Protein backbone atom coordinates (compact mmCIF):
# COMPACT_ATOMS: atom_id res chain seq x y z
CA UNK A 1 0.00 0.00 0.00
CA UNK A 2 2.73 2.40 0.99
CA UNK A 3 4.88 1.50 -2.00
CA UNK A 4 1.92 2.03 -4.34
CA UNK A 5 1.08 5.28 -2.66
CA UNK A 6 4.66 6.53 -3.16
CA UNK A 7 4.54 5.42 -6.77
CA UNK A 8 1.26 7.25 -7.35
CA UNK A 9 2.57 10.42 -5.69
CA UNK A 10 5.76 10.36 -7.76
CA UNK A 11 3.89 9.81 -11.01
CA UNK A 12 1.44 12.64 -10.33
CA UNK A 13 4.43 14.84 -9.41
CA UNK A 14 5.85 14.16 -12.89
CA UNK A 15 8.87 12.07 -11.88
CA UNK A 16 10.11 10.15 -14.85
CA UNK A 17 11.75 6.98 -13.49
CA UNK A 18 8.73 6.05 -11.31
CA UNK A 19 6.51 6.70 -14.35
CA UNK A 20 8.68 4.41 -16.51
CA UNK A 21 8.57 1.71 -13.82
CA UNK A 22 4.80 2.02 -13.47
CA UNK A 23 4.41 1.58 -17.23
CA UNK A 24 6.39 -1.68 -16.99
CA UNK A 25 4.18 -2.92 -14.14
CA UNK A 26 1.07 -2.08 -16.15
CA UNK A 27 2.46 -3.79 -19.25
CA UNK A 28 3.26 -6.89 -17.22
CA UNK A 29 -0.23 -6.88 -15.70
CA UNK A 30 1.38 -6.87 -12.25
CA UNK A 31 -1.03 -6.45 -9.31
CA UNK A 32 0.87 -3.46 -7.85
CA UNK A 33 0.69 -1.69 -11.24
CA UNK A 34 -3.06 -2.23 -11.51
CA UNK A 35 -3.55 -1.05 -7.92
CA UNK A 36 -1.56 2.12 -8.71
CA UNK A 37 -3.76 2.69 -11.79
CA UNK A 38 -6.85 2.51 -9.53
CA UNK A 39 -5.45 5.35 -7.46
CA UNK A 40 -4.34 7.33 -10.51
CA UNK A 41 -7.68 7.09 -12.28
CA UNK A 42 -9.17 10.26 -10.70
CA UNK A 43 -6.23 12.17 -12.23
CA UNK A 44 -7.06 11.02 -15.76
CA UNK A 45 -9.37 12.48 -18.39
CA UNK A 46 -7.40 15.65 -19.09
CA UNK A 47 -4.99 14.63 -21.86
CA UNK A 48 -5.95 14.82 -25.51
CA UNK A 49 -5.43 11.30 -26.91
CA UNK A 50 -4.40 11.27 -30.56
CA UNK A 51 -4.19 7.99 -32.46
CA UNK A 52 -1.92 7.58 -35.46
CA UNK A 53 -2.51 4.55 -37.65
CA UNK A 54 -1.89 3.40 -41.22
CA UNK A 55 -0.10 0.77 -43.24
CA UNK A 56 3.50 -0.24 -42.50
CA UNK A 57 5.91 2.14 -44.18
CA UNK A 58 3.41 4.96 -44.64
CA UNK A 59 5.54 7.12 -42.32
CA UNK A 60 3.68 7.01 -39.02
CA UNK A 61 6.76 7.34 -36.79
CA UNK A 62 8.22 10.18 -38.85
CA UNK A 63 4.91 12.03 -38.70
CA UNK A 64 4.59 11.48 -34.96
CA UNK A 65 8.10 12.94 -34.63
CA UNK A 66 7.07 16.00 -36.66
CA UNK A 67 3.76 16.50 -34.84
CA UNK A 68 5.51 16.33 -31.46
CA UNK A 69 8.17 18.81 -32.64
CA UNK A 70 5.47 21.21 -33.81
CA UNK A 71 3.58 20.94 -30.50
CA UNK A 72 6.79 21.62 -28.57
CA UNK A 73 7.76 24.59 -30.79
CA UNK A 74 4.48 26.35 -31.55
CA UNK A 75 4.19 29.58 -33.55
CA UNK A 76 4.63 32.63 -31.32
CA UNK A 77 1.65 33.44 -29.15
CA UNK A 78 0.77 29.81 -28.54
CA UNK A 79 1.89 27.72 -25.58
CA UNK A 80 4.04 24.64 -26.02
CA UNK A 81 2.28 21.41 -25.01
CA UNK A 82 3.91 18.47 -23.29
CA UNK A 83 3.75 15.26 -25.31
CA UNK A 84 3.87 11.58 -24.41
CA UNK A 85 4.29 9.09 -27.23
CA UNK A 86 3.30 5.42 -27.07
CA UNK A 87 4.65 3.53 -30.07
CA UNK A 88 3.37 -0.02 -30.55
CA UNK A 89 5.23 -2.54 -32.69
CA UNK A 90 4.34 -6.20 -33.29
CA UNK A 91 5.44 -9.10 -31.13
CA UNK A 92 6.62 -12.19 -32.99
CA UNK A 93 3.88 -14.81 -32.69
CA UNK A 94 6.60 -17.48 -32.84
CA UNK A 95 9.12 -16.40 -30.21
CA UNK A 96 7.25 -13.79 -28.15
CA UNK A 97 10.08 -11.34 -28.81
CA UNK A 98 9.96 -8.00 -30.58
CA UNK A 99 12.20 -5.36 -32.10
CA UNK A 100 10.77 -1.95 -31.28
CA UNK A 101 12.24 0.49 -33.78
CA UNK A 102 10.00 3.54 -33.73
CA UNK A 103 12.50 5.62 -31.73
CA UNK A 104 14.85 5.56 -34.73
CA UNK A 105 12.59 8.16 -36.41
CA UNK A 106 12.14 10.22 -33.26
CA UNK A 107 15.70 11.30 -32.54
CA UNK A 108 14.79 14.99 -32.97
CA UNK A 109 12.85 14.72 -29.71
CA UNK A 110 15.81 13.66 -27.55
CA UNK A 111 16.77 15.80 -24.60
CA UNK A 112 13.40 17.54 -24.26
CA UNK A 113 11.91 17.16 -20.75
CA UNK A 114 8.47 17.91 -22.22
CA UNK A 115 8.59 14.66 -24.21
CA UNK A 116 8.29 11.08 -23.01
CA UNK A 117 8.52 8.20 -25.49
CA UNK A 118 7.61 4.63 -24.63
CA UNK A 119 7.84 1.69 -27.03
CA UNK A 120 5.41 -1.18 -26.52
CA UNK A 121 5.25 -4.64 -28.03
CA UNK A 122 1.78 -5.81 -29.05
CA UNK A 123 2.22 -9.06 -27.04
CA UNK A 124 -0.24 -11.06 -29.09
CA UNK A 125 -3.10 -8.54 -29.28
CA UNK A 126 -4.54 -8.19 -32.78
CA UNK A 127 -6.29 -4.83 -32.97
CA UNK A 128 -3.14 -2.74 -33.62
CA UNK A 129 -2.52 -1.97 -29.93
CA UNK A 130 -1.30 -4.03 -26.99
CA UNK A 131 -3.73 -5.20 -24.32
CA UNK A 132 -2.07 -2.87 -21.81
CA UNK A 133 -2.05 0.22 -24.04
CA UNK A 134 -5.19 1.59 -22.39
CA UNK A 135 -3.55 1.39 -18.95
CA UNK A 136 -0.29 2.89 -20.19
CA UNK A 137 -2.19 5.81 -21.73
CA UNK A 138 -4.08 6.33 -18.46
CA UNK A 139 -0.79 6.49 -16.54
CA UNK A 140 0.63 9.08 -18.97
CA UNK A 141 -2.61 11.07 -18.75
CA UNK A 142 -2.39 11.03 -14.94
CA UNK A 143 1.27 12.09 -15.15
CA UNK A 144 0.03 15.35 -16.66
CA UNK A 145 0.97 15.20 -20.34
CA UNK A 146 -1.20 17.54 -22.42
CA UNK A 147 -1.12 15.29 -25.46
CA UNK A 148 -0.71 11.52 -25.68
CA UNK A 149 0.15 10.35 -29.20
CA UNK A 150 -0.46 6.64 -29.73
CA UNK A 151 1.14 5.10 -32.79
CA UNK A 152 -0.33 1.70 -33.70
CA UNK A 153 1.27 -1.35 -35.22
CA UNK A 154 1.45 -0.90 -39.00
CA UNK A 155 -2.20 -1.61 -39.64
CA UNK A 156 -3.91 -3.37 -42.48
CA UNK A 157 -7.64 -3.11 -42.83
CA UNK A 158 -9.23 -4.20 -39.60
CA UNK A 159 -6.97 -2.85 -36.84
CA UNK A 160 -9.41 -0.26 -35.61
CA UNK A 161 -9.04 -0.45 -31.81
CA UNK A 162 -7.28 2.92 -31.85
CA UNK A 163 -10.53 4.72 -32.75
CA UNK A 164 -12.08 3.52 -29.51
CA UNK A 165 -9.10 4.76 -27.49
CA UNK A 166 -8.36 8.12 -29.12
CA UNK A 167 -10.22 11.43 -29.18
CA UNK A 168 -8.74 12.16 -32.60
CA UNK A 169 -7.65 9.46 -35.03
CA UNK A 170 -5.25 10.16 -37.89
CA UNK A 171 -5.10 7.61 -40.67
CA UNK A 172 -1.88 7.84 -42.67
CA UNK A 173 -1.78 6.70 -46.27
CA UNK A 174 1.02 6.76 -48.79
CA UNK A 175 0.44 7.35 -52.52
CA UNK A 176 -0.04 4.34 -54.72
CA UNK A 177 -1.34 1.98 -52.07
CA UNK A 178 -4.13 0.27 -53.97
CA UNK A 179 -6.96 1.51 -56.18
CA UNK A 180 -10.23 3.19 -55.31
CA UNK A 181 -11.89 -0.07 -54.35
CA UNK A 182 -9.61 -0.11 -51.28
CA UNK A 183 -11.13 3.21 -50.29
CA UNK A 184 -14.68 1.84 -50.14
CA UNK A 185 -13.84 -1.27 -48.14
CA UNK A 186 -14.87 -1.35 -44.54
CA UNK A 187 -12.28 -0.76 -41.87
CA UNK A 188 -9.42 1.55 -41.29
CA UNK A 189 -10.51 4.46 -43.49
CA UNK A 190 -13.84 4.61 -41.68
CA UNK A 191 -12.19 5.50 -38.40
CA UNK A 192 -10.30 8.56 -39.66
CA UNK A 193 -11.01 11.97 -38.16
CA UNK A 194 -8.16 13.28 -40.28
CA UNK A 195 -6.78 11.58 -43.39
CA UNK A 196 -3.13 12.23 -44.13
CA UNK A 197 -1.37 11.35 -47.36
CA UNK A 198 2.27 11.29 -46.39
CA UNK A 199 5.15 11.05 -48.89
CA UNK A 200 3.17 13.53 -50.98
CA UNK A 201 6.20 14.02 -53.22
CA UNK A 202 5.83 10.46 -54.50
CA UNK A 203 4.03 9.71 -57.76
CA UNK A 204 0.36 8.78 -57.60
CA UNK A 205 -0.58 11.33 -54.97
CA UNK A 206 -3.32 12.88 -57.11
CA UNK A 207 -5.19 9.64 -57.60
CA UNK A 208 -4.93 8.84 -53.88
CA UNK A 209 -6.38 12.26 -53.04
CA UNK A 210 -9.18 11.70 -55.54
CA UNK A 211 -10.00 8.23 -54.21
CA UNK A 212 -10.19 9.46 -50.62
CA UNK A 213 -12.34 12.47 -51.53
CA UNK A 214 -14.65 10.23 -53.53
CA UNK A 215 -15.00 7.97 -50.51
CA UNK A 216 -15.82 10.91 -48.26
CA UNK A 217 -18.43 12.28 -50.69
CA UNK A 218 -20.35 9.03 -50.34
CA UNK A 219 -20.69 9.80 -46.68
CA UNK A 220 -18.51 8.67 -43.88
CA UNK A 221 -19.52 6.76 -40.84
CA UNK A 222 -17.41 8.16 -38.02
CA UNK A 223 -20.64 9.31 -36.34
CA UNK A 224 -21.80 5.68 -36.20
CA UNK A 225 -19.14 4.61 -33.74
CA UNK A 226 -18.79 8.04 -32.17
CA UNK A 227 -22.27 9.31 -31.50
CA UNK A 228 -22.92 13.06 -31.29
CA UNK A 229 -26.12 14.71 -30.19
CA UNK A 230 -28.64 15.06 -33.01
CA UNK A 231 -28.57 18.43 -34.72
CA UNK A 232 -24.84 18.97 -34.27
CA UNK A 233 -22.87 19.40 -37.47
CA UNK A 234 -20.99 16.34 -38.65
CA UNK A 235 -17.23 16.42 -38.80
CA UNK A 236 -16.02 15.86 -42.35
CA UNK A 237 -12.47 14.44 -42.19
CA UNK A 238 -10.04 16.70 -44.04
CA UNK A 239 -7.63 15.11 -46.51
CA UNK A 240 -4.15 16.56 -45.95
CA UNK A 241 -0.82 16.07 -47.68
CA UNK A 242 2.50 15.91 -45.83
CA UNK A 243 6.15 15.10 -46.47
CA UNK A 244 7.27 14.18 -42.97
CA UNK A 245 10.96 13.88 -43.83
CA UNK A 246 10.96 17.52 -45.01
CA UNK A 247 8.56 18.88 -42.35
CA UNK A 248 6.08 19.85 -45.07
CA UNK A 249 2.37 20.13 -44.32
CA UNK A 250 2.90 19.70 -40.58
CA UNK A 251 1.56 23.12 -39.56
CA UNK A 252 -1.69 22.38 -41.45
CA UNK A 253 -1.92 18.98 -39.79
CA UNK A 254 -1.53 20.42 -36.28
CA UNK A 255 -4.08 23.08 -37.18
CA UNK A 256 -6.53 20.35 -38.27
CA UNK A 257 -5.95 18.49 -34.99
CA UNK A 258 -6.75 21.69 -33.07
CA UNK A 259 -9.88 22.25 -35.16
CA UNK A 260 -11.01 18.71 -34.39
CA UNK A 261 -10.36 19.28 -30.68
CA UNK A 262 -12.50 22.42 -30.78
CA UNK A 263 -15.22 20.48 -32.64
CA UNK A 264 -15.19 17.76 -29.98
CA UNK A 265 -15.57 20.30 -27.19
CA UNK A 266 -18.26 22.48 -28.80
CA UNK A 267 -20.46 19.55 -29.86
CA UNK A 268 -20.18 17.46 -26.71
CA UNK A 269 -18.50 14.72 -28.74
CA UNK A 270 -15.55 14.80 -26.32
CA UNK A 271 -17.73 13.46 -23.49
CA UNK A 272 -19.53 11.06 -25.84
CA UNK A 273 -16.22 9.56 -26.93
CA UNK A 274 -14.98 9.41 -23.37
CA UNK A 275 -18.11 7.58 -22.31
CA UNK A 276 -18.01 5.12 -25.20
CA UNK A 277 -14.29 4.47 -24.58
CA UNK A 278 -14.88 3.76 -20.91
CA UNK A 279 -17.83 1.55 -21.79
CA UNK A 280 -15.68 -0.53 -24.14
CA UNK A 281 -12.96 -0.81 -21.53
CA UNK A 282 -15.44 -1.82 -18.87
CA UNK A 283 -17.01 -4.46 -21.09
CA UNK A 284 -13.61 -5.93 -21.90
CA UNK A 285 -12.65 -6.05 -18.24
CA UNK A 286 -15.97 -7.67 -17.32
CA UNK A 287 -15.37 -10.32 -19.98
CA UNK A 288 -11.93 -11.09 -18.59
CA UNK A 289 -13.29 -11.22 -15.05
CA UNK A 290 -16.21 -13.47 -16.00
CA UNK A 291 -13.88 -15.74 -17.90
CA UNK A 292 -11.53 -16.00 -14.91
CA UNK A 293 -14.43 -16.69 -12.54
CA UNK A 294 -15.81 -19.29 -14.88
CA UNK A 295 -12.44 -21.05 -15.12
CA UNK A 296 -12.12 -21.05 -11.37
CA UNK A 297 -15.62 -22.44 -10.84
CA UNK A 298 -15.80 -25.25 -13.40
CA UNK A 299 -13.84 -28.41 -12.63
CA UNK A 300 -11.28 -29.10 -15.39
CA UNK A 301 -12.44 -32.70 -15.65
CA UNK A 302 -15.96 -31.51 -16.50
CA UNK A 303 -14.48 -29.42 -19.32
CA UNK A 304 -12.50 -32.44 -20.54
CA UNK A 305 -15.57 -34.72 -20.44
CA UNK A 306 -17.63 -32.21 -22.37
CA UNK A 307 -14.85 -31.77 -24.91
CA UNK A 308 -14.72 -35.54 -25.35
CA UNK A 309 -18.45 -35.57 -26.11
CA UNK A 310 -17.88 -32.92 -28.77
CA UNK A 311 -14.98 -34.88 -30.26
CA UNK A 312 -17.12 -37.99 -30.60
CA UNK A 313 -19.90 -35.88 -32.16
CA UNK A 314 -22.42 -36.64 -29.41
CA UNK A 315 -23.06 -32.92 -28.91
CA UNK A 316 -22.21 -29.81 -30.92
CA UNK A 317 -19.78 -27.13 -29.73
CA UNK A 318 -22.79 -24.81 -29.14
CA UNK A 319 -24.48 -27.38 -26.91
CA UNK A 320 -21.19 -27.93 -25.11
CA UNK A 321 -20.76 -24.20 -24.49
CA UNK A 322 -24.29 -23.99 -23.06
CA UNK A 323 -23.62 -27.00 -20.86
CA UNK A 324 -20.36 -25.52 -19.55
CA UNK A 325 -21.74 -22.04 -18.88
CA UNK A 326 -25.13 -23.11 -17.49
CA UNK A 327 -24.11 -26.31 -15.75
CA UNK A 328 -26.77 -28.28 -13.93
CA UNK A 329 -26.24 -27.97 -10.17
CA UNK A 330 -26.22 -31.74 -9.64
CA UNK A 331 -23.47 -32.16 -12.24
CA UNK A 332 -20.86 -30.38 -10.23
CA UNK A 333 -21.84 -29.29 -6.76
CA UNK A 334 -20.14 -26.23 -5.33
Amino acid at each position, binding site marked *: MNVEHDLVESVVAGKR*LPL*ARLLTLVEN*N*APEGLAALDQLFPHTGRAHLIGVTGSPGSGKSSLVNQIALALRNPPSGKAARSVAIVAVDPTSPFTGGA*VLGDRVRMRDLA*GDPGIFIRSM*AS*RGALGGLARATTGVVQALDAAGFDIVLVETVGAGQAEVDIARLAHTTLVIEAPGMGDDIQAIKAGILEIADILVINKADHPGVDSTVRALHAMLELGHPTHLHNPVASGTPLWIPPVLQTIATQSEGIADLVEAIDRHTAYLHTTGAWQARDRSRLQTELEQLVQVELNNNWRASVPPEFIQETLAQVETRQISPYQAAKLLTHPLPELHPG
Partner: protein
Amino acid sequence: MTERKIRVLIAKPGLDGHDRGAKVIARALRDAGMEVIYTGLRQTPEMIAEAALQEDVDAVGISILSGAHMVLVPRVLDLLRANGQEGVCVFVGGIIPENDVPSLINAGVAQVYGPGTPTTQVVEDITRAVLQQAQV
Protein backbone atom coordinates in the same frame (compact mmCIF):
# COMPACT_ATOMS: atom_id res chain seq x y z
CA MET B 1 -1.52 -12.83 -14.31
CA THR B 2 1.89 -11.17 -14.30
CA GLU B 3 3.83 -11.66 -17.52
CA ARG B 4 7.37 -10.35 -17.46
CA LYS B 5 9.53 -9.75 -20.53
CA ILE B 6 13.20 -8.84 -20.59
CA ARG B 7 13.57 -5.42 -22.21
CA VAL B 8 16.91 -4.50 -23.78
CA LEU B 9 18.06 -1.24 -25.37
CA ILE B 10 20.54 -1.70 -28.21
CA ALA B 11 22.41 1.54 -28.72
CA LYS B 12 25.08 2.80 -31.08
CA PRO B 13 26.92 5.83 -29.71
CA GLY B 14 29.42 7.91 -31.62
CA LEU B 15 30.20 8.12 -35.29
CA ASP B 16 30.11 4.52 -36.50
CA GLY B 17 29.07 4.26 -40.14
CA HIS B 18 27.08 1.04 -39.98
CA ASP B 19 25.02 -0.92 -37.50
CA ARG B 20 25.06 -4.42 -38.89
CA GLY B 21 26.39 -6.02 -35.74
CA ALA B 22 23.84 -4.19 -33.60
CA LYS B 23 21.03 -5.41 -35.83
CA VAL B 24 22.28 -9.02 -35.68
CA ILE B 25 22.23 -8.84 -31.88
CA ALA B 26 18.81 -7.16 -31.84
CA ARG B 27 17.43 -9.92 -34.00
CA ALA B 28 19.01 -12.68 -31.86
CA LEU B 29 17.58 -11.21 -28.66
CA ARG B 30 14.17 -10.90 -30.30
CA ASP B 31 14.33 -14.56 -31.32
CA ALA B 32 15.12 -15.38 -27.70
CA GLY B 33 11.79 -13.79 -26.72
CA MET B 34 13.10 -10.43 -25.49
CA GLU B 35 11.73 -6.99 -26.31
CA VAL B 36 14.50 -5.03 -27.99
CA ILE B 37 14.36 -1.27 -28.32
CA TYR B 38 16.49 -0.17 -31.22
CA THR B 39 17.41 3.50 -31.58
CA GLY B 40 19.63 3.71 -34.65
CA LEU B 41 23.02 5.23 -35.40
CA ARG B 42 24.90 8.17 -33.88
CA GLN B 43 23.37 8.38 -30.42
CA THR B 44 24.95 10.52 -27.72
CA PRO B 45 25.41 9.01 -24.23
CA GLU B 46 22.66 11.41 -23.08
CA MET B 47 20.24 10.04 -25.70
CA ILE B 48 21.06 6.48 -24.66
CA ALA B 49 20.50 7.14 -20.95
CA GLU B 50 17.25 8.99 -21.68
CA ALA B 51 15.93 6.10 -23.79
CA ALA B 52 16.99 3.56 -21.13
CA LEU B 53 15.01 5.50 -18.54
CA GLN B 54 11.83 6.07 -20.56
CA GLU B 55 11.80 2.46 -21.69
CA ASP B 56 12.68 1.12 -18.21
CA VAL B 57 15.01 -1.47 -19.70
CA ASP B 58 16.69 -4.34 -17.85
CA ALA B 59 19.83 -4.19 -19.98
CA VAL B 60 21.65 -1.84 -22.35
CA GLY B 61 23.83 -3.19 -25.16
CA ILE B 62 26.32 -0.69 -26.55
CA SER B 63 27.76 -1.46 -29.95
CA ILE B 64 30.84 0.52 -30.82
CA LEU B 65 33.40 0.20 -33.60
CA SER B 66 35.01 3.61 -33.70
CA GLY B 67 37.54 3.29 -30.85
CA ALA B 68 35.84 5.90 -28.67
CA HIS B 69 34.61 3.33 -26.16
CA MET B 70 36.86 4.50 -23.29
CA VAL B 71 35.11 7.88 -23.39
CA LEU B 72 31.55 6.97 -24.38
CA VAL B 73 30.93 3.84 -22.29
CA PRO B 74 31.88 5.30 -18.86
CA ARG B 75 29.78 8.35 -19.71
CA VAL B 76 26.72 6.15 -20.33
CA LEU B 77 27.36 4.30 -17.05
CA ASP B 78 27.61 7.59 -15.12
CA LEU B 79 24.36 8.87 -16.60
CA LEU B 80 22.51 5.63 -15.85
CA ARG B 81 23.67 5.86 -12.22
CA ALA B 82 22.71 9.52 -12.00
CA ASN B 83 19.20 8.57 -13.15
CA GLY B 84 18.85 5.87 -10.51
CA GLN B 85 19.32 3.02 -12.97
CA GLU B 86 22.46 1.49 -11.45
CA GLY B 87 20.77 -1.93 -11.58
CA VAL B 88 20.69 -1.98 -15.38
CA CYS B 89 23.04 -4.58 -16.91
CA VAL B 90 25.37 -2.94 -19.46
CA PHE B 91 27.22 -4.96 -22.07
CA VAL B 92 29.51 -3.77 -24.85
CA GLY B 93 30.12 -5.28 -28.28
CA GLY B 94 32.32 -4.30 -31.20
CA ILE B 95 36.00 -3.67 -31.77
CA ILE B 96 37.46 -3.37 -28.26
CA PRO B 97 41.22 -3.96 -27.73
CA GLU B 98 41.86 -6.61 -25.08
CA ASN B 99 43.83 -4.15 -22.94
CA ASP B 100 40.75 -1.96 -22.52
CA VAL B 101 38.47 -4.75 -21.32
CA PRO B 102 39.54 -4.77 -17.62
CA SER B 103 38.98 -1.06 -17.18
CA LEU B 104 35.55 -1.27 -18.83
CA ILE B 105 34.62 -4.13 -16.49
CA ASN B 106 35.97 -2.07 -13.58
CA ALA B 107 33.81 0.85 -14.64
CA GLY B 108 30.74 -1.38 -14.33
CA VAL B 109 30.32 -3.14 -17.68
CA ALA B 110 28.98 -6.69 -17.26
CA GLN B 111 30.54 -8.21 -20.39
CA VAL B 112 32.55 -7.20 -23.46
CA TYR B 113 31.99 -9.14 -26.68
CA GLY B 114 34.37 -9.16 -29.64
CA PRO B 115 33.67 -10.14 -33.25
CA GLY B 116 32.65 -13.75 -33.65
CA THR B 117 30.92 -14.10 -30.27
CA PRO B 118 28.07 -16.59 -30.67
CA THR B 119 24.76 -14.75 -30.18
CA THR B 120 23.57 -17.59 -27.96
CA GLN B 121 26.22 -16.63 -25.41
CA VAL B 122 24.97 -13.04 -25.33
CA VAL B 123 21.40 -14.28 -24.83
CA GLU B 124 22.47 -16.56 -21.97
CA ASP B 125 24.52 -13.86 -20.22
CA ILE B 126 21.74 -11.26 -20.38
CA THR B 127 19.11 -13.68 -19.17
CA ARG B 128 21.29 -14.72 -16.22
CA ALA B 129 22.24 -11.15 -15.30
CA VAL B 130 18.64 -9.93 -15.44
CA LEU B 131 17.35 -12.82 -13.36
CA GLN B 132 20.07 -12.19 -10.76
CA GLN B 133 19.19 -8.51 -10.66
CA ALA B 134 15.50 -9.33 -10.18
CA GLN B 135 16.37 -11.36 -7.07
CA VAL B 136 18.33 -8.55 -5.42
